[in-house]
């Protein structure tokens, strides 16, 4: 748009170009002449200079080292973290199923061993029911393990717990099984053993 020396609006439109040295000689003269006789445009020109001056003194912010370090940690963690997207992976699922089968078999075996053949305390139907309940319980364990894994994974995606996950992953999966699952299975076996061998209230 060409400069109209008689229009304040046109003069103000061109103030930035004037300050950038982009106007030709004639337009520069026209703008300066206008501002010499128009107090409002002169103030506008002065204000434009002041704003530029002040803008250039605003600080450049260096990126905080902690932001860079956090990004580096996340990158490192993403190379290590391989959490399942939808619950335990195949191997883990197989381990859980096998563990459940072992528990069921052990509880049945222990239950039958502790009873005298002539006077069984529980019927086959009751054992089947207990076995079913145990399987159901393991089903819940499996299901909520999967949900927990999903929650953890989503949190990782939200970048909130990556450092903690990184530390947790230093513990091997085998160690988790040894320290957490095996004792749990042993406890379950003991519990089911005591349930099977001790008579329920109200039964003779």
């Amino acid at each position, binding site marked *: 748009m060409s400069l109209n020396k008689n229009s304040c609006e046109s003069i*103000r*439109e061109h*103030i*930035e*170009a004037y300050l*950038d040295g*982009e106007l030709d000689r004639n337009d520069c003269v026209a703008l300066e002449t206008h501002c010499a006789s128009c107090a409002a445009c002169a*103030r*506008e020109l*002065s*204000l*434009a*200079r*002041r*704003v*530029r001056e*002040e*803008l*250039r*003194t*605003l*600080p*450049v*912010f*260096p*990126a*905080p080292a*902690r*932001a*860079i370090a*956090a*990004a*580096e940690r*996340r*990158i*490192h963690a*993403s190379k290590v973290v391989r959490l399942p997207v939808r619950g335990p992976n195949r191997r883990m699922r197989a381990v859980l199923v096998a563990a459940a089968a072992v528990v069921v078999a052990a509880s049945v075996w222990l239950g039958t061993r502790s009873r005298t053949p002539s006077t069984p305390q529980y019927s086959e139907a009751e054992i089947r029911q207990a076995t079913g309940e145990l399987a159901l319980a393991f089903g819940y364990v499996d299901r909520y393990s999967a949900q927990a894994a999903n929650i953890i994974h989503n949190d990782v995606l939200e*970048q909130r717990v990556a450092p903690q996950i990184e530390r947790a992953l230093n513990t091997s999966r085998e160690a988790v099984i040894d320290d957490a699952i095996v004792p749990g299975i042993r406890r379950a076996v003991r519990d089911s053993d005591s349930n099977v061998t001790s008579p329920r209230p109200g039964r003779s």
Partner: protein
Amino acid sequence: MSHDFRELAEQYAGPVFTYVRYSLRHQEDAEDITQEVLVRLWKHHAHIDPSRMRAWVMQVARNLVIDSTRRRRARATVFDAVPVADTLAAPAPGTPETETERRELREVLEEAIAELAEPQRSIVVMREIQGLSYEEIASGLNMPLGTIKVYLHRARRKLREAVQKELGHNVTE
């Protein structure tokens, strides 16, 4: 990995953080977004044309700023509390009146910069605060040089109008 990452971070973290800091005027959000940009940059840097890397980085930062602004607007309807700048540069020595005026002017300018639409805000930050040349900005934002100048003129005028509106005609040379 660390060496390469540090090189990338050294080159881009500062410009990104400054841009986001002026866009959101919030230290922690700016740090979070800078962190996110660096992670994404590291993830994709092998597939980005080096001459377009700055444009790529700024585009990602702009998108994250837009997302963050939306979330903050939603939060503001509940909490009505958007943190203001807490790290304004110290004003140059002068009379108390001058210092107060300058502080007010800077405050108004920072607010006005944050209110600018894209790409005007990016251009103002890159040109006026980071001191990049028009050519560097045009290359960085992948825009024609003439377009950059037009946006910058408009942005400066908006800043001027904001100062006039907030501080009247008292602020002059």
